[in-house]
């Protein structure tokens, strides 16, 4: 193995940007780290080179542990997006720089730089300065410079990112050829999935500082495991159905689940359908599973192919996660790709030539105590977790490193058998909870403290306002049968419907969608429309739902009245975010509900879900 990364981690200003990355790269392999900007992929590369330090884990190059070595001593070649050719040196001098500082004789330097110039296709241009070379030529010089002293591994950070399309493809191709000829182990970072597909031996998908999935390009494209890899690596539709006797039920279809993607009976299954796996035809094709008859809603020309989006009627017990549906959309939107020459019908049967099953999604719940940090409400959270089929992560926060150790021991003793992970941090409870929320993905944070206790604590109040993950208060209920979603018209009313719907769907609960009106006249049409869209969104989560308009002098009174009246097991409210007007929360309905209700309350931030 040329490169071995073990548990590599890095934090910036208290935030984890790279977390627990494990990777082995074989000799001569061209490995591509693929991720969106800010995903931490460049940081991983810089850590391998030594330009960034590690906060945890080890790096081995050619069997040697280099974790604590300076970049000078690691023997890596690095190519930057901006070329970084030394301006006052000629191309040849740039290439020979590494040999010059190693005291190699002038004659040998000359010979080597000529060889390398030929290798990168710049023979005869050695006397040119950077400004006399085009961007593509400069990057070729940079590549030759990085190869000159025969590095153990070659690292490239978005090397083609600054070039225009035509040069980029040319350079990619010749780079790939050079890499194969020299057989030098290479790690290349890019955000461009096409580029990754074209040159990589293997691809590692990076998201939020984690290596989510690793595989050969074809494998990752046609059989991705995670939803992120599936949607990041190409277009396509992802539908969620249910697992039944080894098959995924998507409406009337029962698609086979391969044995390497085990799913628990009755649990959600995600099915990925790439655009080219969709066939459109006048008549339903026998022997091919059909999603239904669809209408073309969008069609765009893309060279040899035409991308088409079709709306098919919603299928029972089926939900769509990608492409994400606009609020109020009642059908399913299916992506298809057709030869550009083919006539696009207005309506057609949508049948599947192929599909793949993604790994079983497992929701994850964070259980934390924002007041004292040391009493996470694990017991009250367990019924919810069980109903959701979710794993529990417990967060304990202690004042300093030493109390943190003893807290870890205590939590381990109490909960080790019932939770999947115990995390302990040192610092202020809400500060650390905020950090944890920023660094990891949780579907839900369970905070046990009763709402009233919580909102009298200023840091907790601020945390509620600024949260990015839904927060569940007072969770202690054995069963959740009725869910009340209090919707406000407009933006804040959308994510609470989505998140509430998702939760109700998983809990198997009925939903009442509530609107409070201050006067007795019939609600205006746009409120009706909003509620109708809400019901449509809920039915996409396979949830039974009704809308209700209640008249009350204030939103708070109306909501409390309805909650009492209908004896709901869960009240879902939106939070208006950090823009809320006062700090005391006197006019904040969300905080007031938390204060005056002892039912479970789910607080949904504006942009979650």
């Amino acid at each position, binding site marked *: 193995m040329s490169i071995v990364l073990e548990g590599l981690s890095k934090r910036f200003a208290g935030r984890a940007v790279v977390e627990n990355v494990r990777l082995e790269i074989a000799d001569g392999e061209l490995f591509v780290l693929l991720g969106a900007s800010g995903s931490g992929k460049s940081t991983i590369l810089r850590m391998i080179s*030594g330009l960034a330090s590690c906060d945890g884990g080890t790096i081995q190059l050619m069997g040697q542990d280099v974790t604590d070595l300076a970049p000078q001593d690691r023997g890596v070649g690095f190519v930057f997006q901006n070329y970084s050719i*030394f301006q006052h040196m000629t191309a040849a001098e740039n290439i020979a720089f590494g040999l010059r500082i190693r005291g190699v004789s002038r004659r040998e330097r000359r010979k080597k730089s000529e060889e390398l110039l030929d290798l990168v296709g710049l023979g005869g241009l050695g006397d040119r300065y950077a400004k006399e070379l085009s961007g593509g030529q400069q990057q070729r010089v940079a590549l030759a*410079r990085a190869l000159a002293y025969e590095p153990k591994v070659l690292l490239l950070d978005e090397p083609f990112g600054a070039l225009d399309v035509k040069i980029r493809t040319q350079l990619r191709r010749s780079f790939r050829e050079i890499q194969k000829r020299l057989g030098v182990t290479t790690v290349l970072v890019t955000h461009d999935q096409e580029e990754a597909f074209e040159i990589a031996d293997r691809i590692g998908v990076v998201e939020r500082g984690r290596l989510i999935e690793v595989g050969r390009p074809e494998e990752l494209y046609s059989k991705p495991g995670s939803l992120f890899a599936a949607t990041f690596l190409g277009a396509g539709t992802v539908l969620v159905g249910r697992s039944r006797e080894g098959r995924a039920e998507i409406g009337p279809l029962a698609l086979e689940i391969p044995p390497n993607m085990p799913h628990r009976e009755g649990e959600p299954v995600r099915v990925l359908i790439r655009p080219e796996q969709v066939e459109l035809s006048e008549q339903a094709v026998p022997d091919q599973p059909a999603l239904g008859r669809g209408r073309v809603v969008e069609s765009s020309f893309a060279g040899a192919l035409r991308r088409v989006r079709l709306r098919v009627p919603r299928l029972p017990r089926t939900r769509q996660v990608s492409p994400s549906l606009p609020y109020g959309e009642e059908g399913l939107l299916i992506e298809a790709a057709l030869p550009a020459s083919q006539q696009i019908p207005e309506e057609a049967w949508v049948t599947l030539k192929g599909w793949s099953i993604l790994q079983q999604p497992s929701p994850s719940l964070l259980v934390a105590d924002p007041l004292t940090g040391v009493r996470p409400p694990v017991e009250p959270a367990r019924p919810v977790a069980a109903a959701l089929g979710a794993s529990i992560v417990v967060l304990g926060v202690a004042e300093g490193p030493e109390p943190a150790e003893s807290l870890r021991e205590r939590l381990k003793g109490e909960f080790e058998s019932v939770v999947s992970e115990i995390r302990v941090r040192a610092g202020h409870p809400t500060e650390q909870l905020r950090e944890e929320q920023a660094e990891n993905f949780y579907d839900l944070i369970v905070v046990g403290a009763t709402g009233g206790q919580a909102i009298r604590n200023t840091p907790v109040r601020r945390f509620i306002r600024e949260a990015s993950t839904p927060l569940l208060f007072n969770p202690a209920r054995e069963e959740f049968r009725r869910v009340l979603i209090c919707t406000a018209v407009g933006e804040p009313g959308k994510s609470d419907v989505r998140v509430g719907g998702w939760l109700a769907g998983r809990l198997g609960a009925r939903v009442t969608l509530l609107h409070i009106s201050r006067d007795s006249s019939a609600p205006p049409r746009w409120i009706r429309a909003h509620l109708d869209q809400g019901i449509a969104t809920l039915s996409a989560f396979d949830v039974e739902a009704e809308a209700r308009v209640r008249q009350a002098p204030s939103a708070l009174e109306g909501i409390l009245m309805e909650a009492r009246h209908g004896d709901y097991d869960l009240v879902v409210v939106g939070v208006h975010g950090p823009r809320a007007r006062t700090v005391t929360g006197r006019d904040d309905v969300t905080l007031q509900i938390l204060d005056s209700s002892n039912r479970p309350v789910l607080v949904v931030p504006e942009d979650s879900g």
Partner: protein
Amino acid sequence: MNARRKSRGGHSGRGSSLFPVSVLLLVLLPLLLMPLAAVFVFALKGGPLAFWDAVRSPEAQFALRFSLLIAFGTTLVNAVLGTFAAYVLAKHRFWGDRALGVVVNLPVAIPTVVVGTSLLLLWGPIGLLGKMLVPLGLQPMFRPLGVLLAHLFVTFPYMLGAVKPVLDELETTYEEAAYTIGASRWTTFRLVLLPALRGGLITGALLTFAHSLGEFGATVMVSGNLRLKTQTAPLYIFAQFEAGDIAHANAIAAVLALLSFTIFFFLFRFASRAERQEAG
């Protein structure tokens, strides 16, 4: 070249620019151009021989040489110190870095006489540190060293101001490229950063030199204005004027002005060449 033509072409014609141009000239004439001309007119009034004699007088010769020496010394020390300061301020983030960035530029804002006074209050015979040096027989004030200290203080921001922006603009990837290739910090500075800084270094050095050559306020305080010992050219001119020897004063003034013109000429040429290079 093209850009210049274009910007001129933007005006509505030659005729309309005549008025503002002549107004500008009329204002600048008594403000800048005529005083400069007057120096040369008066310097050569007694004929070239009298001018030559005035320049050749031992005191004038000392003052000119001393000024040049101090200017060279100041430039040399501040080139190193200013570049180092620029490097540290541009490449390192530390507690108080912003404040330090302001402090090192302070000398531009402080009246030079105040600088002279503060130096006396620190290093002078009754100064905070000077007091301790007296028993050792050391006394920097009223000595060439005192003049050098004053000039270093007053001209410190010029080098920094010319070098730091270049360093700020230079992406760290150049250094990082050198590191990964195997170059140490020092090698990287010598072979990668320093050549990139050449333009800033030359500009900063010329500015420092020119300012040192003309420094008056701080020098007059710390030098004691001792002829043939610490008298710089500007001090000499002032002393001659006060003594009523206008011919001597003018002659040296003319020489100083010429020197400054020469420096300015190089500065200007260098700046425009750098600009052209960048554009190319």
